[in-house]
């Protein structure tokens, strides 16, 4: 692995809980090479999701350095951060977070639309739609393009969420307990999908989970305990 996708050094994050500060991350350092599939495993409440949010630029660390794809993201403007979130990072959440008013295809297209103003969208529309169809086809959802998320099973919804995360072909895919809400068979399918994108396309994936058997599927496992990471 030549390039580094994520380079984190001494990340700290704490939240105020009433009177006292809750130190969730107490100096986390790790790196992920481009094309690597890394799992972070830890008990619930250990700060896994917080770490993922920091890496996905949904939140800012109190202290520490974070370099994504060679770019120091600590002091970027809101505009640049939005752009990185949109183009370079894809997110898969435990609870899918699909927009209920929109059908499957529209949900998948949202990140692509966010990226382009109305006028240029007209020009890009065709290409982006074709790509969305390809991705959805690969995930076995081509029959359900016009369905609302509420008509889908949990596994199907999560696959839609994966398609949405990948529509802008991000360098980095972040998955937050992607199978946490699914039974084990469905969970396995989702992991298989992730692995397929990893092996076939060399997709860099950072996944957090509390499930050892899922974590075992990754190239490398990091343990998060007491706010610190251990190999």
């Amino acid at each position, binding site marked *: 692995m030549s390039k580094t996708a994520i380079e984190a050094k001494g990340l700290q994050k704490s939240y105020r809980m009433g009177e006292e500060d809750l130190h969730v991350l107490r100096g986390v350092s790790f790196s992920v090479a481009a094309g690597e599939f890394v799992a972070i495993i830890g008990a619930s409440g250990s700060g896994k999701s917080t770490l993922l949010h920091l890496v*996905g630029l949904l*939140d800012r660390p109190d202290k520490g350095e974070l370099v994504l794809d060679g770019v120091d993201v600590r002091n970027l403007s809101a505009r640049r951060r939005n752009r990185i*979130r949109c183009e370079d990072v894809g997110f898969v959440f435990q609870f899918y977070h*699909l*927009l209920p*008013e929109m059908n499957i295809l529209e949900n998948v297209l949202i990140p692509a639309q966010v990226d382009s103003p109305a006028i240029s969208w007209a020009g890009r529309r065709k290409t982006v739609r074709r790509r969305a169809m390809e991705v959805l086809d690969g995930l076995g959802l081509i029959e359900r393009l016009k369905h609302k998320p509420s008509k889908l099973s949990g596994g199907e919804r999560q696959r839609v969420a994966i398609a949405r995360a990948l529509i802008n072909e991000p360098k980095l895919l972040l998955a937050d307990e992607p199978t946490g809400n699914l039974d084990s068979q469905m969970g396995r399918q989702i992991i298989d999908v992730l692995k397929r994108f990893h092996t076939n396309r060399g997709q860099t994936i950072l996944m957090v989970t509390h499930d050892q058997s899922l974590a075992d599927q990754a190239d490398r496992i990091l343990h998060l305990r007491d706010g610190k990471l251990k190999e």
Partner: protein
Amino acid sequence: MYKLVLCLRYLRRRAIAYFAVLGVALCVAMILIVTSVMTGFVNKIERAARGLFGDIVLEPYGQSGLPRYDDLIEEIVAKVDSVEAASPRIYSYGVLRIPGQADFRMLVQIAGIRLPEATGVTDFAHGLFVQEGVAEPTFDPLRELMIRRVSDEIEAINAIGTRERNGLDNVELSDAALDLLSRLNNARLYLEAGLSNLKLADEKAAALEYLLDAQNEVELADGDTGVLADNLVELDSRLRELDRSSDQYEVISRARRAMGLAIALGDAARLNDPIDQFEAETIEPWPHRVIPGLGIDALSFNMKTGERVRVVGPGSKITLYVFPVGRGMSLTDLSPNVQRLTIVDDCTTDVASIDNKTVYLPFEELQRLNDMGEQSYEGGLVGPARCSQIQIKVRPDVTSEVELQKVCDDIETVWREFKGNYADRYPNDYPHALLMTAEAQTWRERQIDLISMIETQRTLMVVMFGIISLVSVVLVFVIFYMIVVQKTRDIGVLKAVGASSPGVAGIFLAYGAVIGLVGSIIGTTGGYCFVRNINSIQDWLDDRLGFRVWTRDRFMFAEIPNEVDLLTVLIIIVGAVIAGVLGAVVPAIRAARMQPVEALRYE
């Protein structure tokens, strides 16, 4: 792009958004209706005021009147460029009575006008019954026209009577229905009496012809009155056809008596007197004429269906007791001048309060009845004839109040000059003839109390309803706040995939604008339809529920104004869109400020 997609999707999927749209629509419709009706009202008053009294009125203080008005008008028209035409008028008061309706007596305003001259100054020509569409109406309309109109009116009343009776089939007759039928019947009888009076002139003309024929034949036969026998036989056969009590019978039998006398005495000259008399009656059948306002009680009534039924029409007579408020009026004694008048036409203006109490007489007739005619005094002095005021029409390109004021000043200058030269110009006039001052006023000045009152009311109403419309802003605010809270997670997702804060705020602002736009389009459409049909709606309400807001007799105008101004519509739509956006501002800011992590955690 996602903003547009999302805001349209929210609009369609969120039923609660319809309430916001509905609220905006109602407020918009309300404001549109109020402004349209009030503006229409002001416009109508302005138009009516100009139409009734001309653009400018020159009026002396007091009631004694302007002397030498024709010379003055000539000078005003010659010296003031902008003046197009002018006509003198007399106003007085009197009591109106209608023969056959013993209980009816009514105080009326009497206007003496010169026809057709006055039609060049005011809109008097519009709304005449007999002379509808006649370019230069007079107090002497064509008799055939009067007969045709009255006949049509009788036919119409018969049709209404038939319709009303049919509507009553199989139902016990109510007092109201019986009353209506008897009123309709009365109306028909009165109109028929008027009609026979109109036709009487034909009989007189026919009788005159018989007599002239007879005289001619006697002359041709060298005084042999025996040749008249044939005419006599023909007249007798005519008489047998006629009802003995009718006026026609009276006329023909007068002719027959004259002819019989001539035959008996063998003297054709015996025919001269009746010929002279019939000639006079034929040429001037009704020496005293009147055009009453149609709205006067007892002259007509309104059907519930909106038709106006004439009870007393052309050909009928009325009696007028005129209180001479002119120069002859003494401080201790006021004896009215009584005159029987024949109705030759009737008139409606746009203004109900004028139509229900004004009668129009020929200018010179009222001048006489009002004691404003020329009088002679000892020592060869003359008290010149007078008018109450001079109504003036300006050129159509003089429109603004400022320009009209300028014309007023010019007219007053001419008046002062006229007054200054008066004693030299008319040395024989009674010395006190011209002691009064006079003032020229624009139509607007004369109606300023009324117009400014209604304009103030309009402003007040618009402000009040504008404040009420803040409700729609609050409505949008509340509904949007709810949606933002409900959609917290979705907002988190959008931010997670890179949507910027202004972008997220934009969704809700655009959403608010769309709600304002859709609401105002629905509201203006609804409001427009309401205003255009406001009179039918009112009639319907009256018919079904007996609920009448706009009483025809009480308000100035018979109809509620129903015009909608395009500019007002545009302003209201823009206002509604702004209101929608305004209501969305706070929720949009809240949505934009949301931290994605917290928003995603929100369940």
